[in-house]
């Protein structure tokens, strides 16, 4: 019997706000332990939470980016559990009335398009971090109270690769939207997995097993690569799986039982009495919706169709938004955007890196790159000369036509002048001329190079080839 996996993901993402969710402490990674703390995020007696409006905005903005609906009424709840990293021993979260619900993410997978439905993206608070020393333990509460978005997917994923690809697509969307920096190493994204297996064709889901403790997307993939075959093996051997939570051991590369269903927490959710329900007005939502940006996939598709770019070039621009914005700005007047894209991706980017120039300080004027391309396309200069012209443009900000004019770089297509140069070269290289006549085609390239050299690169290479060949064969 064939088995298939059914996978859903719960992805936690730290929101990119200046301050924490309920207090004014900095939302900042890497500060010395317990320096970004105050009575509120430490849960000292008597304190109250006050919602950070930017956290609410980013939550709703995420909803828009993930095609969710935004309910007119959302509220906060307390999730009760004891753990040393939880300052209040309850977490403020959104239980049954989240700020966003019923969305989806489209992404490219296995040569086609896939869609994962989003159950909800709800706002909650991060907890502190436990540290264990030789004789005791400590808690750093810098992270406690940082706004955290939990993005829950429907069980629409069927493989570890698909889960991995979805996570990366989700991450791209969140970075794009300015929701989160999604820096895995700084713990800004964390992911729990729900996975079950069932015989192909069966409708009912198998026992849902939750896996925790993956600290990278590849960890998620590896955990699934371990867990799915494990579950299938259990079922195939006639065993029975039951709902449980397992811990991923990244070093050992295995999952192990953390708690069974009987040991599952009863979180005793109830409405947070310290916070008012969140009922966004139309004007507020309108303001947030103005921050919606074009998503990576849509952008890629647009770059491919609008500018005729090949997929790798479009992807380059998806991954480098400022460069893409620059490209779109300069290519507005271009007849040949694909060639402009080449200049931007291959030449401009290299120059920026080489000289350490920020994109904003580039001297080349918007219309100049398309002009350069037009000079090449019109046979005015060779592509080799164009490199020199580009270097000059980058250095001085001068227009390409002016540089060509000033330096006399215009391509020579005067046959009389080229014939003269060819005659000189043939005369100076009798051995190569002989070789060509004897059938060694490569000799022509050598002679051609000599002519180009003699013309300081200005001779029209096509014409040089034609004339040389004619002269040698005559």
């Amino acid at each position, binding site marked *: 019997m064939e088995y298939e996996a059914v996978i859903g993901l719960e992805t936690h993402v730290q929101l990119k706000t200046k301050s924490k969710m309920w207090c004014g402490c900095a939302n900042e990674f890497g500060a010395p332990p317990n320096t970004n703390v105050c*009575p509120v995020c430490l849960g*000292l*007696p*008597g304190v109250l939470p*006050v919602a950070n409006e930017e956290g609410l905005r980013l939550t709703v903005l995420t909803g828009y980016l993930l095609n969710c609906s935004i309910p007119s009424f959302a509220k906060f709840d*307390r999730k009760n559990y004891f753990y*040393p990293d939880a300052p209040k021993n309850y977490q403020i979260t959104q239980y049954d009335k989240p700020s966003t619900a019923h969305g989806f993410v489209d992404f490219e997978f296995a040569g086609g398009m896939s869609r994962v439905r989003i159950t909800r993206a709800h706002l909650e608070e991060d907890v502190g971090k436990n540290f264990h020393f030789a004789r005791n333990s400590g808690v750093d509460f810098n992270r406690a109270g940082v706004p955290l978005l939990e993005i829950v997917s429907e069980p629409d994923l069927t493989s570890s690769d698909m889960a991995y690809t979805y996570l990366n697509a989700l991450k791209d969307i969140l970075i794009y939207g300015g929701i989160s920096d999604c820096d895995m190493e700084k713990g800004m994204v964390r992911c729990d997995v729900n996975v079950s297996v069932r015989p192909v064709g069966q409708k009912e889901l198998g026992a849902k097993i939750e896996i925790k403790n993956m600290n990278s997307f590849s960890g998620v993939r590896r955990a699934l690569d371990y867990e799915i075959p494990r579950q299938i093996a259990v079922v195939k051997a006639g065993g029975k799986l039951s709902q449980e939570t397992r811990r991923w051991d990244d070093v050992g590369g295995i999952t192990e039982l953390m708690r069974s269903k009987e040991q599952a927490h009863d979180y*005793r959710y*109830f409405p947070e*009495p310290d916070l008012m329900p969140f009922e966004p007005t139309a004007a507020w939502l309108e303001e947030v919706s103005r921050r919606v940006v074009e998503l990576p996939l849509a952008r890629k598709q647009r770059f491919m169709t609008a500018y005729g770019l090949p997929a790798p070039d479009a992807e380059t621009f998806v991954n480098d938004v400022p460069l893409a914005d620059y490209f779109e700005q300069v290519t507005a007047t271009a007849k040949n955007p694909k060639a402009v894209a080449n200049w931007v991706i291959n030449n401009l980017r290299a120059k920026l890196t080489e000289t350490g120039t920020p994109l904003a300080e580039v001297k080349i004027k918007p219309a100049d790159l398309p002009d350069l391309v037009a000079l090449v396309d019109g046979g005015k200069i060779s592509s080799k000369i164009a490199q020199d012209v580009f270097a000059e443009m980058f250095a001085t900000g001068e227009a390409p036509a002016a540089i060509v004019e000033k330096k006399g770089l215009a391509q020579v297509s005067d046959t009389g002048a080229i014939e003269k140069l060819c005659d000189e070269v043939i005369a100076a290289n009798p051995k190569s001329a002989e070789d060509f006549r004897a059938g060694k085609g490569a000799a022509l390239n050598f002679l051609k190079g000599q002519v180009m050299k003699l013309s300081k690169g200005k001779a029209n290479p096509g014409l040089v080839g034609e004339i040389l060949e004619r002269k040698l064969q005559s």
Partner: protein
Amino acid sequence: MLNQLTIAELTAQLSRKEVSAREATQACLDQIGRIDSQLHAFLSLDAHDALAQADAVDRAIAGGANATAQPLLGVPIGIKDVLAVKGAPLNCSSKILGKYVSPYDATVIEKLRAAGAVVFGRLNMDEFAMGSSTENSAFGTTRNPWDLSRIPGGSSGGSAAAVAADECVATLGSDTGGSIRQPAALCGCVGLKPTYGRVSRYGLVAFASSLDQIGPFTKDVRDSATLLEVISGIDHRDSTSLPQPVPHYRNALTGDIKGLRIGLPKEYMIGGLDPEVNSAVQAAVKQLQSLGAEIVEISLPHTDYAVATYYIVATAEASANLARFDGIRYGQRVDADDPLALYSKTRGAGFGDEVKRRIILGTYVLSSGYYDAYYLRAQKVRTLIRQDFLKAFEKVDVIVTPTTPTAAFKIGEKSDDPLQMYLSDIFTISCNLAGISGISLPCGFTSNPRLPIGLQLLGQPFGEETLLRVAQAYEQSTGWHKERPPFSAAGK
């Protein structure tokens, strides 16, 4: 004796420079020194700090400060041990907080300071404000100044006793189900529970967040208005505080209540009501009538469910609010090898029986499978109770009831019977569930022993002006508030 003055009297003398703030504070400290070993209203106090504050006020007065701009200038005000005062111990009358000192001031404390008050002392209470007698304090029971063998009420028993016994000019307490009004009634002073959202809760250690309000204990209604005006207002640190403008409450004290409609809820005439309490309240109703008010019988049909509803909502919230007392970050810790054992030992040793009882009850009503039957249903009933009041307030301006079914009971009388203890709050609880305003003021005495009886007036949401106007008109026409317990008045 300056400690016996009201806020109005003291600030008047201070502004005429007849007395100094230091003398006023010293008078309170002297009174505390003389009687508090018997009364036990205070858990602790920092006399040095209090006098330093008083000296600062004296310098400010010399520099031109006055009570018009700072209505509490030089007034010594004691603080219930549930409010955060920077640099002061904060124990909530519990062992679990150990040697905890608050690093910040509650919003109301900031407001008191800005108004020129001398903020001092930690006043005894039932542990975490859970109780009606202060017998649940981990640090001993406060006595009723009218009869030291009796309880002062609770949970703000220390705050009530301190005002009644002239240890302070006024105090702050908190009221979750009657914790201001009930002890005010039993000690014979004025206690006001503001509308939910009127006063910021920032810095009030939460018992039941959706019910808690901070309020004043004073010697008369005018002082209550003064103090309420100072502590009220929206606070950006408390999302549940409301942007309602703060009126000049003292201006509402016109003495004129002609034509006001006063409601008498028929459901409050219960069997357990002490006859002397009943007749005092009936007399008060007649008095209000003679002052020109119209008495209207009203119905609050869901009254019977109030106590049960309260003990579900309040304990549910408390079970989460008290979770933070775990010995990890602050307070008393009983160490163990793993976090779970540490929690059990710390909380087992740190909390008293009543607190544990309520945490267990609250945990239970929120548990999977019971939530709908208890918590959710209680919230629905709560809405009905609020609707009862809002409907009644379409017909009347204020509602009058006894504050408590009986006068102060004996220490130990109900401490083994939680249910009997819970029923002592039967008249005060609905006010918190409905989120409305309420005040208790003296309306007479029982005959033998002579114990104060409290009259409760309930007002509309943000109806404190009317509430205070009626209360003051009654008070000024009777003079019960001027009676002082012989115990503390002796030796003057």
